[in-house]
């Protein structure tokens, strides 16, 4: 397991040899720091981010045939991050991301450059302030697969936005492109999901779903009819909603949920 810890302006790397990491000079003018990661062998990477007060750009290159799981936990801060992924032939990316920050703006660009490259994304967030996530997914090679799942619960003063755009050009056949976004909005604030599929090819499987709403009143009634309070019912439903698909930071996410629905 490799670990990258970002705290304040410090970036610490625990490298087991399966990755190459280089940290770029911080740009004083733009206040942007960059981290370049080359994944050489099958591995897991944990990224723990807290109280960072600079903008951060991640460049992650996954080499041919390599499988990588990236588990990221962002907390206690305001973040403007950019991620650029480059996936070579037969490579595999599984990204699980948990956000419990304040204001968050993220731009994620996924380049599926090699045939049969596969990218699976699972983002879970509890939004309390402004959070905006943009995804651009480019299927640049044949038989590539993307599955982008964004789930958020919007509470307190939260405003949450997911924008996901997938691109398949003419001639890039056999791709499988999936987007699923759901926001449980517990506030009166507006939340937005913009799912876009830009496809100029017939031989493609494409799915997208987008849903903004609250928990179903019948679900709450069912749980409460067994003696569970409304708050505890919301806690259970939030866990059911957000914990799906999360493995590494599961207990951390449970603790975060307990913090807001105690």
């Amino acid at each position, binding site marked *: 397991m490799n670990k990258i810890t970002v705290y304040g302006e410090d970036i610490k790397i625990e490298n087991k040899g399966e990755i190459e990491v280089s940290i770029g000079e911080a740009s004083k003018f733009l206040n942007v720091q960059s981290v370049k990661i080359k994944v050489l062998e099958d591995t897991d990477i944990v990224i723990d981010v807290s109280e960072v007060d600079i903008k951060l750009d991640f460049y992650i290159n996954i080499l041919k045939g390599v499988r990588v799981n990236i588990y990221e936990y962002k907390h206690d801060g305001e973040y403007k991050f950019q991620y650029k992924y480059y996936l070579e032939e037969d490579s595999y990316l599984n990204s699980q991301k948990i956000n419990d920050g304040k204001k968050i703006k993220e731009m994620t660009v996924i380049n599926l450059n090699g045939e049969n490259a596969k990218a699976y994304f699972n983002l879970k967030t509890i939004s309390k302030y402004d959070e905006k996530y943009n995804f651009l997914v480019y299927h640049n090679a044949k038989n590539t697969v993307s599955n982008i799942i964004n789930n958020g619960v919007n509470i307190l003063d939260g405003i949450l936005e997911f924008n996901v755009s997938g691109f398949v050009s003419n001639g890039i056949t056999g791709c499988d492109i999936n987007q699923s976004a759901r926001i449980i909005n517990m506030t009166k604030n507006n939340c937005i999901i913009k799912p876009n599929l830009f496809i100029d090819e017939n031989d493609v499987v494409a799915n997208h779903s987008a849903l903004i709403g609250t928990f179903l009143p019948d679900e709450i009634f069912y749980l*409460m*009819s067994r*003696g569970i309070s409304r708050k505890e019912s919301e806690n*259970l439903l939030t866990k059911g*909603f957000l*914990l799906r698909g999360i493995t590494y930071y599961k207990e951390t996410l449970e603790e975060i949920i307990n913090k807001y629905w105690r």
Partner: protein
Amino acid sequence: MNILNIDNLTVEVEGKIILKDFSLEIKSGEIHAIMGPNGTGKSTLTKVIMGDDNYKIVKGTISYNGKVINDMPVNERAKLGIFLGMQMPMAIEGVTNADFLRSALRAKEGDNFKLLSFIRDVDKLTKKLHMDSEMIHRGINDGFSGGERKKNEILQMNILKPDVVLLDEIDSGLDVDSLKLVGESVMDYYKERKPAILLVTHYQRLLDYIKPDFIHIMKDGRIVLSGDKKLASKIEEEGYDKIVGMSDE
């Protein structure tokens, strides 16, 4: 002795009156069966007693042991000992039966909650009800058949040990064997704890297993005829129209 009293209750949903001046009293150890044609307000009655806020009480009272509970939150009613076994229990993906039941039992028992006896009870009940033992780790009713959902309701009843049991068409979706199993499990629970039971059903067949003391026929939101078990047989033979007439609706 626990007493659930419904007095002169009128209930509307989306501007339409469903229950009209409905009155009924159920005591510990009594089994009441409510029968009647579709749309007469039988399910509404059970949901209103449980506190579903989709239904508005226009007038009348629901009281439990002398205390009016019209405005009491759903979970507080459950903690008083009222349980509703639903006609179509919700499936909730992601929330496991184990987490759900643990939370429910913790809400009821507080610090007296014992995890080990909970696990033992669930294990015993899944065997008794012929349920897959792994169901406890699955989402609530997630992927369950109609019959499995009903069995899950009976399992929950046995875990939570309520004093007032409302069963809304617990027989629907059950095959012959499951009907017998569920019916006998309800009677086992009745013999053990002597709760007050209010049973909503369309068919006499459930009453082969759960023996009611009283049968009430509902029409147009109120009880129009009461009797003993013979009344259910008569309904089965002759139909509602002949016995209580056509609905006013």
